[in-house]
């Protein structure tokens, strides 16, 4: 390796072992969506029959795309902008686009973790009383009319500040001592906490009715395109792929690590956790339906409604309700924090590589502005509307769009998929064939483009949730467009002289060849 590339690599930090990397990658993939999105998506799209399109999506799109991110980060050993820049001179903008998306996501994701942390405490005395919905929007969030206001809500702002302080400390500690150590502790605790929640939920009256609703197969659903789209969408959004996280984490792994085997573990661990979440959530919903004397389809929900309205209702009625509350909301906090640190690390890593900054310096340069924006926009009475709109648009016209563009660029413009396949196969326990290149270059982009076009048409035809046009224009379309423009403008800033911009693997092989010859 040349002196320049060696300098860059020593400076960046790394995970101490493959095990730590795998736990960190699982921590990133297993997030709030695994707990509150998958169960409802499976229930709505064929129940037990959903496992078939879900598995097809995992094997033909999720894992191949995960390996693309791994290959890119591991081969070019940099943040998203640096890895794309090393892959191709024209690629850097894609990396900065991903960095911009991660910054936006970090800003609002922290707020949901803050709510979950607060609800963990609320569970102890069931502070929401007999009306969890009224409590959420009234007493807790104090939600006013849609807009952007500066009326701060103490109960939201204080935990939000604490979340950001904790995240900044973790990020400042570095790749191994911060991200790695957090993941090594949090992921086993998360698994144990959620497993305990599932055990408790399965003992509740009506649990089997909930499982029956979730797993009874509707085979006719397999003939519907929307079910297959839902499966590809769930896998895509669940695996933390396509927006720089796995590129960044893979760049911190030892040079001769088995990346294909690691990818298989991360992919199945993520899906395995989703299944566990489905069992726990629907067992609890079955109890909720039984308590209310109704059917599961009347109480099934997802997202914020499931977490902050349905679960408090369940906690009110269930024996050991406080325990269920602490386990459920505690799991959301653990899953949320390990995902948030992976999202913000994409930004910190990009800034570090570009400006050759120290770990602490870059963590503060990125984290403090992100925290301030997060507190100002999300800690107020209008925070929930900001969150709802930004989340909706950045997922579709940020993550989904950059994923399609980067896959097509790497396959057909930069023509790097053959190089990446060779790199993954060099030390991989599972060998991937040319079929992988076709999945990455054709099948996965086609499936994601289908989803993207459908979403685009739906959002043009009907304004999202009836929000005012100016809010959708600025926080929705505007933010999604701004990260693209700013991402490509960032490429105009020059790299530092000491930053190595060629392929580090070629440099390493050239050095090995020279040493072997002499």
């Amino acid at each position, binding site marked *: 390796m040349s002196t320049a590339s060696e300098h860059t690599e020593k*400076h960046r930090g790394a995970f101490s072992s*493959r095990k730590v990397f795998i736990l960190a990658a699982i921590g990133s993939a297993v997030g709030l969506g695994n707990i509150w999105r998958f169960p409802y998506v499976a229930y709505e799209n064929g129940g037990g029959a959903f*496992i078939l399109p879900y598995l097809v999506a995992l094997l033909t799109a999720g894992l191949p795309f995960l390996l693309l991110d791994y290959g890119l980060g591991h081969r070019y050993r940099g943040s998203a902008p640096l890895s794309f820049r090393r892959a191709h001179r024209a690629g850097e903008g894609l990396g900065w686009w991903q960095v911009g998306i991660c910054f936006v996501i970090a800003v609002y994701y922290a707020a949901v973790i803050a709510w979950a942390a607060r609800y963990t405490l609320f569970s102890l005395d069931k502070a929401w009383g007999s009306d969890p919905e009224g409590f959420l929007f009234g007493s807790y969030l104090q939600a006013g009319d849609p807009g952007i206001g500066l009326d701060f809500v103490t109960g939201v702002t204080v935990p939000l500040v604490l979340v950001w302080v904790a995240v900044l400390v973790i990020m400042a500690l570095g790749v191994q001592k911060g991200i790695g150590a957090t993941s090594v502790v949090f992921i086993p605790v998360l698994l144990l906490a959620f497993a305990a929640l599932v055990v408790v939920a399965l003992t509740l009256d009506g649990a089997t009715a909930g*499982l029956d609703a979730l797993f009874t*197969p509707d085979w006719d659903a397999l003939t519907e395109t929307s079910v297959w789209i839902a499966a590809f969408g769930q896998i895509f959004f669940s695996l933390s792929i396509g927006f720089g996280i796995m590129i960044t984490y893979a760049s911190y792994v030892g040079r001769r690590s088995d990346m294909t085997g690691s990818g298989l573990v991360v992919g199945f661990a993520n899906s395995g956790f989703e*299944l566990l979440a489905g069992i726990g959530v629907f067992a609890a919903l079955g109890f909720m339906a039984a308590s209310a004397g109704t059917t599961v389809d009347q109480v099934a929900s997802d997202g914020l409604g499931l977490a902050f309205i349905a679960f408090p209702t369940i906690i009110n009625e269930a024996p050991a309700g406080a325990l269920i509350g602490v386990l459920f909301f505690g799991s959301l906090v653990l899953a949320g924090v390990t995902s948030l640190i992976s999202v913000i690390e994409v930004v910190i890593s990009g800034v570090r590589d570009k400006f050759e900054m120290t770990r602490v310096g870059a963590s503060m340069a990125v984290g403090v502005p992100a925290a301030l924006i997060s507190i100002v926009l999300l800690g107020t009475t209008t925070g929930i509307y900001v969150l709802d709109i930004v989340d909706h648009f950045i997922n579709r016209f940020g993550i989904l769009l950059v994923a399609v563009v980067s896959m097509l660029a790497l396959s057909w413009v930069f023509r790097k998929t053959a190089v990446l396949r060779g790199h993954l196969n060099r030390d991989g326990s599972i060998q991937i064939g040319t079929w992988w290149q076709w999945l990455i270059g054709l099948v996965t982009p086609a499936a994601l483009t289908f989803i993207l076009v459908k979403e685009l048409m739906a959002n043009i035809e009907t304004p999202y949730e009836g929000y005012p046009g100016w809010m959708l224009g600025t926080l929705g379309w505007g933010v999604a467009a701004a990260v693209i423009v700013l991402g490509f403008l960032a490429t105009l800033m020059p790299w530092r002289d000491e930053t190595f911009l060629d392929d580090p693997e070629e440099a390493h092989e050239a050095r090995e060849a020279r040493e072997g010859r002499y």
Partner: protein
Amino acid sequence: MSGTAIMMMLLAMAVLWGGLGFAIWNITRYKGEEPEVFQRDL
């Protein structure tokens, strides 16, 4: 629970948790190379 629901639940468990078990077995038998000293994070 109906018989088909139980069967589909067991199938999902076998595929996803079994797949995870296989993946873990696969990487434990194939060690690869760990970094001798992990890089400092300056």
